[in-house]
C-alpha cells in the first residue's frame, strides 16, 4: 500500500513529462533535422558510427534523424485518431444515456454487439475502401475504436446520470443536449481524460502496426511503423536500426499508459491515503488495563472456549496500538455469550480470532486460547483441522457467505466429506437432516440449488445448518441477523436459542444490537474500542443494573423492552468512538463520558469487580448506575 502510494504521483508526472517532451520533439524535429534526415549518402545500410548513431538505411539516410523527424507525423496521426475515437465514443455513449429510455436500451445493446468485432476488421475494411494512406488509416483506426469508447463513456455517464442532481435537472425539464453539456460531461472530465490517454496509447500502437504491415503511411512519407518495417528488412545487416523506431513506439505508448494509470489513481477517491499508518501513543496504564478481571483469571474447567489476554493488531509495528486489547472470556456448554458494541469495537475481530479466521495480514497473540481443552493460541502454528468440526461459524451476510458459483449442497457437506470421510450419500443425508433441523423448507431441493435461488432468511438457515453439520461444540454467530429482514430476524434468533438448548452447545453471539443480545444471551460482554468494558448477566442487563457509563448509554439509546418504560425518551449516545488510528491515552470512553474525571484521561481503567457489585472497567463507577446520569 505504501509503495503504491508513492508510485502514484510518480507515474503521473513521468507520463506527463514524457508526453510533453515528445510533443516538443514533434514540433521542432522536422525543422532541425528535416534536411539531414532526407540527405542521401553513399554509406548504405551502415552500422552505427559517430556520424550515424543508429546507422543508415538502404538509401544511406541517417536512421536517428529519420526517427526523430518521424515523431511529428506519428504523433499527429495518433492525436487525430484519438480525437476521432474518443470524440465519437463520447458523443455516442453520452447521447444514448440522455436520450429516452427506449433509444437508450437499444443503443446500449447495439454498442455491446459492435464490441464483438475486433477493431482490426473495421480498420482493414476502411483501408480497403480508401486505399492505404495517412488519411485512411487514421479514420480507420479512429472509427474502429469508437464502440469501445462509446461503451466506456456510456458506463460512466450512466453512473453520473443516476446521480441526484441530474435527475433533478431532468425533472426541471432541461433539454437532453443541455443536460449533456451542463451536467453529464463536466462530471466525466476526469475519467474522460484517463480514457483519452489510454486511447492515445492504443492509437499509437495500432497505427504503427498498420504502417508496419504496409497499410498505413506510404512512401515517401514515413512514420515510426514504416521505419520499423524497414529496420526489419535490414535486421541481419544493421540490427541497431530497429532500436530507434521500436523504442520510440514503446516509450510513447508507455508514457500515455502511465499518464492514464496515474490519472486514474489520482482521481480515484478510494485510492490514495486510505490506509494511514496506525500509530497510537502507548496507552498509559496499559499493563494495568490488560489485567483481566479476577473472576476470570482461572480458566473455568468446564469451559468450551477459554480466552486470556487476546490482542490483535493491524501490523507488527502497531502492536502498541492494537485493535483488540487484552480480551479474556470463557463460554461453557449450553451457554450463550453475547458480545455487544459499536462497529469498530473489536467484537467481530474477537470472534474471528476465536475461530482462528483472522485475515492473514493481522497480527494477534493470546496467553490462552483453548477450544475444548486444546490449546490453539500459537499464532504461528497452522490451525488444527479439528477446529473445522469443533467450531461452527455463522456469518453476517448469508448472501455473500455461500460461493455463488457452486450448488448449496456440496458446500454444506464439504466438511463432513473432507474431514470425516463421509460418503457423498451419507453426507447428503446428514446435510438434509441438519437443514430440516434449521427449518429449511424442502431441503432436498435446496441442496441442488444455487445460493442466489434461496431467499435471504433461507440462506441464513442453510448457513446455520452448514455450521451444525458436524455437531460442533461451539457456534460462533457474527451478527447473524443484521442482514436479514426484521420479520426473519426473530425466527433466526429463535432457531439459535433452540439449538443451544437442545444441543447443549456453547454459542458466542456478536451483535451491535443490545436488544438482540438481551433477548438471546445468558451472559454479555460489552466491548468498546477494543476492550471489554463490562461483563454482566442478562438479568442485570434486562433490569438495567449496568455499571459502565458506556453500557448505560447504550441502554438509554435503545428502545426499552418493558412496555411500562416505552414513554421514556431515547437518549442518543453523543460523539463517536475513537478511530482505530487515533491515539488513546487513558480511558477510551473519556471523550463521550458524562462522569469523566482527570484520572480517566491519564490512566486506562482495568476491568474489576466494583464495590457495590458488577464487573466493569471504570475509575468512577462503584456499582449499578442510574438512568439519569446523562446530565452534563
Amino acid at each position, binding site marked *: 500500500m505504501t509503495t503504491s502510494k508513492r508510485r502514484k504521483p510518480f507515474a503521473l508526472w513521468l507520463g506527463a513529462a514524457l508526453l510533453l517532451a515528445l510533443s516538443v520533439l514533434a514540433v521542432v524535429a522536422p525543422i532541425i533535422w528535416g534536411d539531414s534526415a532526407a540527405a542521401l549518402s553513399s554509406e548504405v545500410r551502415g552500422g552505427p558510427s559517430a556520424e550515424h548513431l543508429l546507422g543508415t538505411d538502404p538509401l544511406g539516410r541517417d536512421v536517428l534523424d529519420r526517427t526523430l523527424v518521424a515523431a511529428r507525423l506519428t504523433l499527429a496521426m495518433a492525436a487525430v485518431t484519438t480525437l476521432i475515437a474518443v470524440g465519437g465514443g463520447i458523443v455516442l455513449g453520452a447521447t444514448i444515456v440522455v436520450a429516452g429510455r427506449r433509444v437508450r436500451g437499444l443503443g446500449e445493446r447495439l454498442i455491446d454487439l459492435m464490441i464483438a468485432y475486433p477493431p482490426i476488421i473495421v480498420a*482493414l475494411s476502411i483501408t480497403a475502401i480508401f486505399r492505404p494512406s495517412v488519411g485512411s488509416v487514421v479514420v480507420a483506426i479512429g472509427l474502429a475504436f469508437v464502440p469501445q469508447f462509446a461503451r466506456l463513456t456510456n458506463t460512466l455517464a450512466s453512473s453520473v446520470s443516476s446521480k441526484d442532481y441530474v435527475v433533478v435537472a431532468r425533472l426541471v425539464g432541461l433539454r437532453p443536449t443541455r443536460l449533456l453539456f451542463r451536467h453529464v460531461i463536466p462530471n466525466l472530465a476526469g475519467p474522460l481524460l484517463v480514457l483519452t490517454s489510454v486511447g492515445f496509447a492504443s492509437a499509437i500502437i495500432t497505427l504503427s502496426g498498420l504502417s508496419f504491415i504496409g497499410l498505413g503511411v506510404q512512401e515517401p512519407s514515413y512514420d515510426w511503423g514504416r521505419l520499423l518495417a524497414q529496420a526489419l528488412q535490414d535486421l541481419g545487416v544493421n540490427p541497431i536500426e530497429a532500436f530507434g523506431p521500436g523504442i520510440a513506439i514503446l516509450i510513447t505508448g508507455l508514457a500515455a499508459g502511465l499518464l492514464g494509470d496515474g490519472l486514474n489513481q489520482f482521481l480515484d477517491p478510494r485510492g490514495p491515503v486510505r490506509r494511514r499508518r496506525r500509530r497510537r501513543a502507548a496507552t498509559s496504564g496499559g499493563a494495568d488495563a490488560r489485567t483481566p478481571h479476577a473472576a476470570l483469571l482461572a480458566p473455568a474447567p468446564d469451559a468450551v472456549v477459554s480466552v486470556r489476554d487476546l490482542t490483535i493488531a493491524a501490523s507488527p509495528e502497531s502492536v502498541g496500538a492494537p485493535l483488540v486489547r487484552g480480551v479474556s472470556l470463557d463460554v461453557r456448554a449450553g451457554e450463550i455469550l453475547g458480545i455487544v458494541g459499536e462497529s469498530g469495537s473489536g467484537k467481530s475481530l474477537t470472534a474471528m480470532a476465536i475461530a482462528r*479466521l483472522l485475515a492473514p495480514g493481522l497480527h494477534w497473540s493470546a496467553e490462552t486460547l483453548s477450544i475444548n481443552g486444546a490449546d490453539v493460541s500459537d499464532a504461528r502454528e497452522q490451525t488444527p483441522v479439528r477446529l473445522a468440526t469443533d467450531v461452527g461459524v455463522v456469518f453476517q451476510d448469508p448472501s455473500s457467505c455461500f460461493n455463488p458459483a457452486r450448488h448449496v449442497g456440496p458446500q454444506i457437506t464439504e466438511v463432513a466429506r473432507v474431514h470425516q470421510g463421509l460418503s457423498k450419500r451419507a453426507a447428503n443425508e446428514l446435510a438434509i437432516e441438519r437443514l430440516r433441523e434449521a427449518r429449511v423448507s424442502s431441503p432436498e431441493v435446496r441442496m441442488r440449488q444455487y445460493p442466489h435461488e434461496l431467499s435471504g432468511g433461507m440462506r441464513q438457515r442453510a448457513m446455520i445448518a452448514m455450521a451444525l453439520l458436524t455437531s460442533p461444540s461451539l457456534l460462533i454467530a457474527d451478527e447473524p441477523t443484521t442482514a436479514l429482514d426484521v420479520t426473519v430476524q426473530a425466527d433466526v434468533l429463535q432457531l439459535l436459542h433452540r439449538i443451544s438448548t437442545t444441543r447443549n452447545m456453547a454459542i458466542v453471539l456478536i451483535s451491535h444490537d443490545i436488544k438482540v443480545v438481551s433477548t438471546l444471551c445468558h451472559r454479555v460482554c460489552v466491548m468498546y474500542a477494543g476492550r471489554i468494558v463490562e461483563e454482566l448477566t442478562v438479568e442485570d442487563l434486562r433490569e438495567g443494573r449496568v455499571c459502565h457509563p458506556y453500557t448505560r448509554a447504550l441502554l438509554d439509546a435503545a428502545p426499552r423492552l418493558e412496555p411500562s418504560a416505552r414513554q421514556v425518551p431515547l437518549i442518543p449516545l453523543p460523539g463517536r468512538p475513537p478511530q482505530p488510528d487515533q491515539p488513546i491515552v487513558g480511558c477510551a470512553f473519556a471523550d463521550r463520558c458524562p462522569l469523566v474525571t482527570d484520572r480517566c484521561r491519564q490512566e486506562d481503567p482495568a476491568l474489576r469487580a466494583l464495590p457495590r457489585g458488577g464487573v466493569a472497567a471504570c475509575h468512577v463507577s462503584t456499582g449499578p448506575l442510574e438512568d439519569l446520569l446523562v446530565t452534563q
Partner: protein
Amino acid sequence: MTSIIPASAHGAPGGGAAVAPRVRGGAPWSAFLLRRLGGVAVLVAVLVLMTFLIVRLVPGDPARNLVGLTASTEQLQAVRSQLGLEDSLGQQLVNYVGNLVSGGLGDSFVTSQPVSRLLGERLPVTAELAGLALAIVIVVGFPAGMGMAAWQHKRRVRWGDSAFTTVTSLGGAMPEYVTGTVLIYLFALKFDLLPAQGGAAPSEIILPALSVAFAPMAIFARLVRNETSAVLGKEYITTAVSKRLPSWRLYLTHVLPNVVTSTLTLGGLLLVALLGGTVITENVFNVPGIGTAVVNAILQSDYPVIQGIILVLGLLAIAITFAVDIVLGLVDPRTVSAVRSQ
C-alpha cells in the same frame, strides 16, 4: 489498463423470494440461448452488409481502378459484372447474399483462384497460430496471476504487488510487431535457433505465436491476479477457510471456479484481440495465413479476397464471443437467470 467489461453481467439477482428449482435446459436456458442467438444474427447481418459495402463504397469506379485507364470498354464491363456492380444496389445485395449462402465467395482478381480455396489453404495456418498463442496466454498467464495473488495473500510482501504491476504493464504495452522484431533478432539472427520465416511447421510457428501471445499474456496475468485477490477477499472464502480444507482443495474448488467466471468475459475479448494481433504478426514473420493474404489483397485491390477474409475474421470473432457467452452461462448460473430479470 482499461477494463472494457460491463459490470452488469454480474448483477446479483438479489434475495427476493425463493425461486422455484430450475433444471438446465428449462425455460431460462432457452430464453438465454434465444437472446444470444438473436445477437449473433444481428452481428452476422451487419458483418455481411459491411463486406458487401466495401466494394460499393470505393470512391470512383472500382472496376476502372482495377483495370486501369487504358483498358477497353469490354474489359471494364467484364470486371464490372465480375464485381456484380451492374444491377441496382438492392439487387446487388440480394445476389451477394445469395452467393454467400451457396458458399460462393467469388474468385481472386489476381490469381483467378476461388477465394474459398485460398481460405482453405490459409485459414488453418492462422488458426494454428492463434490457437497456440491462446494456449501460451492461458498456460502461462493464468497460473502466474493466480500464484501471485495466492502468494501475496499469504505473505503480503510489500513490494510484491507493485513489482508485478510494473512488469505486467511493461509487458502488456509491447506491440506484437516489436516483440516479433526482437524475437527474430535474438532467435533467428543472433543465435540461429529458429527460422525467421514463419509457417505451419512447429519450428516455424513458435516465434510468431510467442509474439502474438506476449502482451496479452501479461495483461491476462494481471487480470487473473486482480480477480483472484478480489475473490480471496470475499466472505465465502472465509466460510471456506473455516472448513480448514487443504489449500489445494481450497484453491481448486472455492477460488478457481469464481476466478474463471470473472476472467472469462475479459478472456473472450482478449481472444478477439488476439485475432488482430495474429493478422499483424503474420506480416512480421511472413506466415502464409489469412493475415498476410488480406494485406496483399488490400494493396492489390483484390476485393473478393478482402471481402472473404474480413467475413471469415468477423465470423470467427462472433463465434468466439458466442462461445464465451455460452460457457459463461454454463459456469455461472446467474448469467442465465439475469436474462429473466432484464
